[in-house]
Structures are given as structure tokens and as C-alpha cells.
């Protein structure tokens, strides 16, 4: 992304350079190709590019910035770009991904329920849809996926893997994000005792009644009685000083339903740290992140090289989708380093 605007190909009509007397020996990769080769390749294209260049060159030249100031400016630009991109993607663009995933998961889960192949536990592959959560009072309809690792929850709320599925006898835990990726659980704390919501799983539909909403220090609910299904919805609060931008402590909603479905045995007894509430996937993700960042650096170098040969318009037309895609993927990876419910 960082492109030195100071360098231009020699075969284009050169604007009047400011530092005329200082002739810099350029490294091999920025030296021009031989015109014969270039023209032989695409003379027509060159002609048109040359025309564009000629028109642009007729504008009064802007004095380029050089030296320390240039380096500082470029660095700050880069930092700004990266930070703002992160903010823009997390708060805005990530919802696109969430919506798309949900649409696909809904179709998949719908088909599985209809064809009676939806999972009933106890062991399901992470990322597979396991339940449909409908909270009418909050306008939430989300497909719950298996697994609560940060990466699994990019698609939607996640079901904690060492608990029964919602609606089955036992206590089930579902976590959801509160400020990014569609913010499915942003309004969770607005539920009130007595509110109801539905969960559809392979065994059928259960209507849960909210017992209470708990934050730090609130008393735990009474023990579950036999034959009931309990669901604990968990997310992070968004009512801190910075509101939606900075999720704070965990908040839980306890809800219960009678006449639970039978629960299969054989649940895993342990849960990795990465899937605990507020867990991060730092251990798993770092190699992947390294690869993504290396890809970005490589792409930047490629762009610099390309700009020596072709016009900015051409290069950016070709490179923008690639840059965007790589930036997007990298951000998705970065998010996995963050707590799973923000």
C-alpha cells in the first residue's frame, strides 16, 4: 500500500522534478524496462497511458515532500490506515460477513432439521449449526454454531462445547458478540425476567423463560431441578464509558424451560482456554497472522515494483481487490486474538 509517489517511469513524459540536480541511482527493480520490449508488448495501451500522463503533467506540479518529513508522513499514514481499517471493518464491514454466514447457516440448519440430520450432540464439529435462537423482544434470530472459540463466533453465537445443547436436560451455555460481527448479543442485557424466547434444535422447539439478568456480583440462580433445561446466554456489557466501542465485564442471562429433551451422554469434560468466556485464540492464530502479515508486506513490495512500470490507475485497479481481500482476511485473523464475545 505504501507507494513512493516520488518515482515515475522514464518512458512517460516527466514532470519538472524539483530536485533536478540530484540524480539518484535507482536499484534494479525500479529501473525502466527497455522501450522496445515494452512497446512490443502493448504499444496501443502504452499510447493511451502516455496520453493520460501527458494530460496530468499539464497540471501545476505539487511540491513533493522529502527527507524525514516524508518518512514520518508515510509512517503516520500507514498507522492511520491500519487503525481506521480495523475500526471500519470491526464496526461495519464485519456485519456483512456475519450476515452472509448467517444466511448460509440458516439454510443449512433448516435443511438439516427438515431432513432430520441436525446434530443432537454430544460431539459436533466446531462451526456446524446446532440451534436456532429467536428472541422476539430483541429482534434476534440467530443460528447458533458449535464452539465458542473466537474464530467460530465470527459467524454467530457459539454453543459452549462441554455443555448440552439448549433444550436438552442440563445447563447449556451460549455466547455471543456484543459489538462486532453483527453484534448479535448487543442488546442482551435489555431482557427482563419473564421474557420468553425460543430455541430450535434437532429434537424440537423449546420456549425458555428468562429467570434473571446477571452482572458481576449478582447472586447466582437457584440450582436447576430435574427435568428442566437451562440456558445461560453470555456476552460482554456495552454500557461502559465508551459504550459500544469498548465492551466491559461479562453479563449473563439465565433462562429455563420445562420438559427438557433427553441429553446424550459423552460430553467432553474439559474446555480449552480459548473457548472460555472472553477467551482468545492467541496460541493458534499467531502463525496464521504471521503468514497474513507477510502476505501484506509482500503485496506492498509488489505494488511498489509495479508502480515503477505501470500507471497508478492500472496498478490500483488490479491491486485493490487483492489488497482489500488480504486486509479483510488479516483483520478476521486479528479478531481471533481478541476476547470472543466483544
Amino acid at each position: 500500500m505504501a507507494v513512493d509517489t516520488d518515482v515515475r517511469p522514464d518512458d512517460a513524459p516527466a514532470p519538472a522534478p524539483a530536485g533536478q540536480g540530484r540524480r539518484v541511482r535507482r536499484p534494479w527493480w525500479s529501473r525502466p524496462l527497455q522501450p522496445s520490449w515494452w512497446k512490443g508488448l502493448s504499444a496501443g495501451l502504452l499510447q493511451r497511458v502516455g496520453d493520460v500522463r501527458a494530460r496530468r503533467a499539464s497540471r501545476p506540479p505539487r511540491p513533493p515532500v522529502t527527507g524525514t518529513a516524508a518518512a514520518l508522513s508515510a509512517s503516520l499514514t500507514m498507522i492511520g490506515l491500519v487503525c481506521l481499517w480495523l475500526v471500519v471493518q470491526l464496526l461495519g464491514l464485519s456485519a456483512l460477513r456475519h450476515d452472509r454466514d448467517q444466511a448460509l447457516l440458516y439454510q443449512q440448519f433448516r435443511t438439516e432439521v427438515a431432513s432430520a440430520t441436525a446434530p443432537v450432540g454430544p460431539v459436533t464439529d466446531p462451526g456446524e449449526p446446532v440451534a436456532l435462537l429467536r428472541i422476539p423482544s430483541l429482534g434476534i434470530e440467530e443460528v447458533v454454531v458449535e464452539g465458542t472459540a473466537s474464530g467460530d463466533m465470527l459467524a454467530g453465537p457459539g454453543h459452549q462445547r462441554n455443555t448440552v445443547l439448549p433444550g436438552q436436560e442440563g445447563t447449556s451455555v451460549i455466547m455471543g458478540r456484543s459489538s462486532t460481527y453483527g453484534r448479535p448479543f448487543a442488546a442482551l442485557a435489555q431482557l427482563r425476567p419473564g421474557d420468553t424466547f425460543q430455541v430450535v434444535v434437532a429434537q424440537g422447539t423449546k420456549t425458555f423463560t428468562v429467570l434473571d439478568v446477571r452482572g458481576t456480583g449478582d447472586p447466582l440462580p437457584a440450582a436447576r431441578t430435574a427435568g428442566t433445561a437451562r440456558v445461560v446466554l453470555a456476552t460482554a456489557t456495552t454500557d461502559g464509558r465508551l459504550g459500544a466501542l469498548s465492551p466491559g465485564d461479562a453479563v449473563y442471562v439465565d433462562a429455563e424451560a420445562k420438559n427438557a429433551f433427553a441429553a446424550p451422554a459423552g460430553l467432553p469434560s474439559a474446555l480449552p482456554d480459548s473457548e472460555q468466556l472472553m477467551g482468545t485464540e492467541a496460541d493458534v492464530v499467531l502463525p496464521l497472522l504471521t503468514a497474513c502479515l507477510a502476505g501484506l508486506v509482500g503485496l506492498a513490495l509488489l505494488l511498489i515494483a509495479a508502480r515503477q512500470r505501470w500507471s497508478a490507475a492500472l496498478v490500483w485497479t488490479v491491486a485493490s481487490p487483492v489488497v482489500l481481500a488480504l486486509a479483510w482476511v488479516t483483520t478476521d485473523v486479528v479478531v481471533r486474538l481478541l476476547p470472543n464475545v466483544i
Partner: protein
Amino acid sequence: MRPQLRGRVLAALAGLASAGLVTLAAVPGWLPAAAADPTTATAGSGVATRQQVGSADDSAWTQTQTLTRTFVDASGAEDVVGSYDVTVSADQTENLRGRQRITISWSGAHPSAARASDPYGENGLAQEYPVVILQCRGVEDPTGDEEQLSPDTCWTNSWSQRSQLARSNSESTWRKDLYADEADTERVSGADPLPDAATCPSLDLGIYSSHITPFLAADGTQYDACSSSTMPPEAAVDAAYPAAELAAFTETDGTGEVQFEVRSDTENESLGCNDETACSIVVVPIVGLSCAAPSVPATSTDTACRKTGRFIAGSSNYTADGVDQAVSPSLWWSESNWRGRFTIPITFALPSDTCDILDTRSATGFYGSELLAQAALQWAPAYCLSDDRFKFQLNQMSDVAGWNLMESGEGAAAEVASQREETTDDPVGYAPTAVTGFAIGYIIDKPDNAGEYTHLKLNARLVAKLLTQSYLGSDLGRGHEGMGDNPLSIMQDPEFIALNPGLSQTSQEVGATLLSLSISSDVISQLTDWISQDPEAMDFIDGDADPWGMVVNPNYEGLDLPFDETPLLDDYVPTTSDACRTANPGVYFNQIAAPVTTLRKISDALLSAWPNVQTKCDYDPDTELYKTGRIARQSVGARFMLGLVSLGDAERYGLRTAALETTDDHYVAPTDASLAAAVELATQTEDAKPFVLDQADVRTSRTAYPGTMIVYTAARMRNLKKAWARNVSQFMRVSVTEGQVSGSGNGELPAGYLPIEPTGPTAKLYRSARRVAAEVAAQAPLDETDDDASDTPTSTASSGTTTTSHTGSGSAGTGDYTVDEVPSADASADVPTDAASSDAVVADGTSLGATAAISSGSGGMVLPLALVLGAASTLGAGLVRVLGARGRS
């Protein structure tokens, strides 16, 4: 949608259940009384039974008759040429089940000659003076009326045992039978009307004589028995079950003994013996035809009738040479022979699915050990047919699978034979239910037609050699690295020969293996524990050669014992020029071992002498492919097979069991006394926990049987559903009282189990069972004083879940087994509403503490930071640019 889903889940469960479980249920209560004729039979008088474990059945039968052979001379004078006081005994006659073997012994009979190596079916016909034993439908009429047992309802596996077709004069001796009906002395006889020539073409051929004995099937069909196509369908040449009827051999002292396998209508529908159809075992000692007055001059038939045999007593007839018809078993149906029959009335137990038919209640499932199978078969009706009891059902599966079902709350109780790891907080009580064990069953024929070998002794090293696949099997195994000089099989192992002298040393592949279980089982762990306590066996496994130079299979060297699942570690694929084996390469030793999933299959293989060795490799002309498969049944006379069986099966099917070495040169067979001695050694470490039989103690005892195992009913003593707790507790109590009365009736303890009694060596088991039964019934809720932290649901800071779910936190690896028929129909109805059930942990109203703080920490600040930094940087960059440009211009 919901009913569909439930239906689908139930269907899946049902499919799994039917595939994976052997369901034992059983039989309604009425059992016909023994139909022994009080005038001729004296029950149980001094009969030595073969039974080894479990006290003797009182249904033994014995009877004595005088049999004579009489010739009438031309003048009409009767000449008694032979008179025999024959006594026949049977060890059990009541409540038999399909394929059960009963011991029939006799004395005082005419010594046999021309012994056939295989006495069964038509192979036994070429013998002289044998004792023919058959199973027949019907019993004798005790009033002595006309309705007596007829040869027409006696089963034979081939027509040639029933019928004589187109015989010359010298081979039609039945026509001169002194006692024969007028009609049977005709040239063609046996049925009225006789079948037509289209059905039986060779019946009526000119001067030749014929006699047929039709077979009357249970459904009324009459089979003419004059060719293989006029026999019942069960009488096919390669029928599923080999012939059971035989012409048994009498020793020169007039005694003999065989094990006779009875067939129920499950195995033989045409014969049709079941709980409602009375049947008999007919024993016909052949003493020779009695002959009517001869013609003058005597015809060749008269001469033939008076023959007394070509072979000398005790001789063998390997090549099935012709014998004198008058003393052969072929004419067992002729009146001379038939009138001297012994009819042993037998009754069959009701079929095992009757509980399911007669009791519509849903069953309470007990899951686990197959060791309990035979006992459960007899116990189940005593529960399901009683209104104040419940419907008991034993679902056989590996011990660990049964345990997991019980722990996860899906099964009421587990049947296990050792202590297992508890993974939930609810305490589990083990109530002793039965004392039984495993045995190494065998079927071995002595060479030279000398009958079965009955005193097999095995030591731990020999078993270790078999389990470690250290015999070569055949020359195909010679190429195996590191053990090419080992014996081909146990028959050629000098150690085995020294221990069991006088057996054939002709090697067979089956002699390289002990047919064993492929699944995890407490039986395997006890067997290997016994081996691991034997220093010589362990030295062998660790790589030392035995005194004869045999070494362990290198793939097994240093094997860690004990284990509960037999590992198949060999990977040797022989290289051979054989086209079939080249097309089907396989690990040779594993094809020989071929372990199976249930002990019952091993018993069946032993019963049929049909090894599970899968090395047969031949060309299939239909598909033009080479294929491998199970080798053929072994022929009688050359049988050799070893298999791991349960004592219950061994007794039910009359399998012989080996004596195992405990200390040097002390071999202990499974008997009441040796099981009791082992129980005495077993110690209990903690109340309600299993008794542990330390094999090190067994080695110091000279009387304890190492294969003794105590089967426990294990159930949760807290948080078990009320209905289940009631049923399980009842089962625990009844099975150590009523269920420990030896016998073959409903609710009684079959042979193969040592009764648990309130006195004697089993008293400690009795007391422990009663105590556990009481605790299971009480289901005492969690006591506050022994409450530990893990029982209280607390917020765990890492997970944020605020209630601890106890549901199904089973151990890893349960996924394979736990999906099965959850008896949920009654379960949901019986769920008590109080808090002390299922996985709810404490009563309402108890304060459980406060929600712990879990914060997103620095992670939550990422977005604000990024926003601020981004904005600042962008501003800064613009500022630098503007300032820099201004400074330059």
C-alpha cells in the same frame, strides 16, 4: 417436525441397539413337569454328572432294561444268543435349551466294533453293535397303549439312516425280524400307502427289497425319506447344524458315554421340539436282530440275519468297510432294535423372547457383562412374569460400555466384573450378583480313534504363546522375522506335549491360536493378569527363549500385561507363489487369530468344532475371483480347538474346560470347590466396592481357580431415578437369595455359577450385596458433612458458567457406545419432582454465591485505541505533509 425428529432418533437408537446388543429376555413361568415314567425310571440315583460348577441338577434320569437277541430255529425253538442288562443314564432332562448338550452314559451294552472316526449322522452307519441315540418328537404313553413313540418322529440328518432301498436278499435282514409286523416283512414296506414310483424310483425294483421310515414333521408333512429330495429341509448335506444323532461306541467293558446335543425348534423346525411339544431322546443299544424261523433250506437272508459281526470288539473301521447289517445301526427302526429302546423324556425351556411377548411393561435395562448371560436367561422370567416385580433385561455389551451407560444415567445399572473408574460425583455401589468366571474351553480328539481328550492342562506360558501369536501356524509363517524356528502350533510344542502326553502332533493352523475376544472385557484383563503373575510367562514375553528354544513373536516382545483388549500386533504378510494369497494379501497370524465379539460365538465354534481361522483361500468360479474365508468344520476324530469361554456357556453346552496352572505343577480346573477357594482369597477394600482377587494370591494357593470372577450389579447410590432405584435394589436382593438356588427352572441359578449363600466362603458377598441393595434403595441425598467443593456449583472464573452441569460428563471414548435405547418411556414418567434426583445438585433456596467478574480486559480497549490512534495518525500525516511542503516552498 418434532415427532419426525423423535422418530428418527428412536429409529437410529433402535437400529444401533439391535446391531450392538444381544438382548436377553425370557420365558413365562409355567414349566411342564418332568414326564419320566415312574414305573421304569428312577430319578437321579447315583448318577455321576459331568457338571463341574454349580450343584447337580435334580433332573437326572436313569433306567435299566434287559435286552436279548433271540434266534428261532427251523423247529420253532427259541434260542437266546445274547442277553444284556443295559443301564442308561442322562444327567439332565428338564428346561433344556437349543444346542444344550447333555451327557448320556450307559453300561452293560454289547461291546462295539468297527469304530468310525465320526459317529454322527450317516458317517456312523458302518459300525457294529453301536448305541444309536436320536432325538424324537413325542413321549411314550405311560399307560402302555398303542400310542407309543414311533420311529417316524425321530430325526436323522440323512435318508440313508432311515431307509433301505433296493437291497439284495443278503441285505434285507429286517424281513426276517422275529418281532416285525407282518407288513414289514413284505418286500417293499414302511409306509401305507407307499409312495409312487415317481417320488421314489428305486423303491420297488423287481426282486429287491426296500423299507422306508418316513419322517413326520411337526407341521404334519410326511417326508418319504427315499432320497435327499424327500427329506425335510433341515436335513441338507451342508446344513447349518451338523448331525446331532449318532451311533455311539461302547467300550469293551460294555460302558460308554457321549454328549448329546439337543435341538429346539429354533434349530430344527421340522423336528419341532419346544416348551409346548414334548420330546424324547431315544437310546437304542444295538444287540443284533432277533430272527424268525428260517426257511428250509435257509436262504441267504436267514443266514445274514444270524450274523454276529465281521469286526472284533474295539476295532476301528476308518475306511467305512461294509459291516454285517444285522448288527449295524442302519436297522435301528426295526422292531427287534426299537423294542429295546430307552426313551428319555426331555422338556425344553420356554423361548427367550417370551418376556417381550407376555410382558408389555417397559424393561429396566441392565447393561454389561456376558458372564451373566446364562443366569439372566433363567432369571428374567421370574421378574417379568411377576406383577410385583419389574421387567428385567440384560443387554450384553463390553463392561466399559455398560458402565458408561450406568454412569451417564441412561442405564439403570451395569453388570461388571471389576472396579472401574468413577467419573461422576455420585457414589456407585457394587452388589455381588453371581460367582462365575472364564475357562479355556477345548475340543480335542485323541489319535487312533480313542475318543475325546478330557484332561487338558495349560500353564500361563502356553497361553502367553498363543496370545502373542508366537506359533507359526503353518509353513507360511516360517518367513516371519525372528521366530522362524518356533513350533508350527501348540500340538508340536514340546512344553505342551510334556503337559498333555498322548495327543496327535499333526499340526493344524488352529493350534496356533486361542479363539478370543476382540472387544474390551474384564475376562481378558483377568486372563492376562494371571499370565502376568507367572514369572516364566513374563520372561518369555520379555524375550527369553523357553527351555526348548521357542521365542516370542518380536512384535509382542515386552508386551505390557495385563490389558483388557487383546492387541493384534503382528504385521507379517507372507510372500508366496500361491495365486490366491497373492491376490488377497493379509496378515497371516491375524487371519488365524480372528477374534470375535462375544463369548457365545466362541462357544458355538467349539460346539461345532469349527475354528474361526480365516485362512481358507480359494478360487470362486462364479465370480472368477480368489477369495478368503473361514476354514471348514473339523472332522470328528481330528478335532483340535481352544477357545475362551464363560463358565456358564461351558456348562450349558457341555464344553470341556482346561485346568490352569496356579503354582508350579498345580493345575486347577473350575469346580465348585476351586471357585469357592478363589472367593475366599478375594478381599474388599472399601464398603460397597468390588472384591479384588489378586492373582498373586492365587499363585500361592493350590486350590483356587484363577479364572474365578465375581459379577457385580453396579448402580448409583445417589441421584438414581426412583423407579430404577427400586427395581435395581430389588434385583440386587433377589439375585443373591432366590436367584442363587441351583436348578434349571425360572429364576434359578444354572450350572456354571457358584451359589452365593449367607454362610460359607460366599457369605461376605451376600452381606455386601444386601448392604448395597439397601443403599441403592435409600438413595440418600448428599450429606452436608462430606460435601466437597466440586459438588457445589460455583462460578468458575475461567468459564463463566454459573451452574455446573453434571450431566454426561462421562469419560472420553464413550461416544461409540452410549447411543442406544434409552429406556426413556418410563423414565420420563417416573422422574421424581424432588430436588435430589438426576443432576440437580442442591435443594432450592440455598445461596450459591455471586457471579464472578470476568472482564474483557485490554481486549475491550482495542477498538477505542485503534480509533484514536487512527485519527491521530491521519491528522499527523496531513500536518507533516502540509508543514513539510510549506517549509520547502
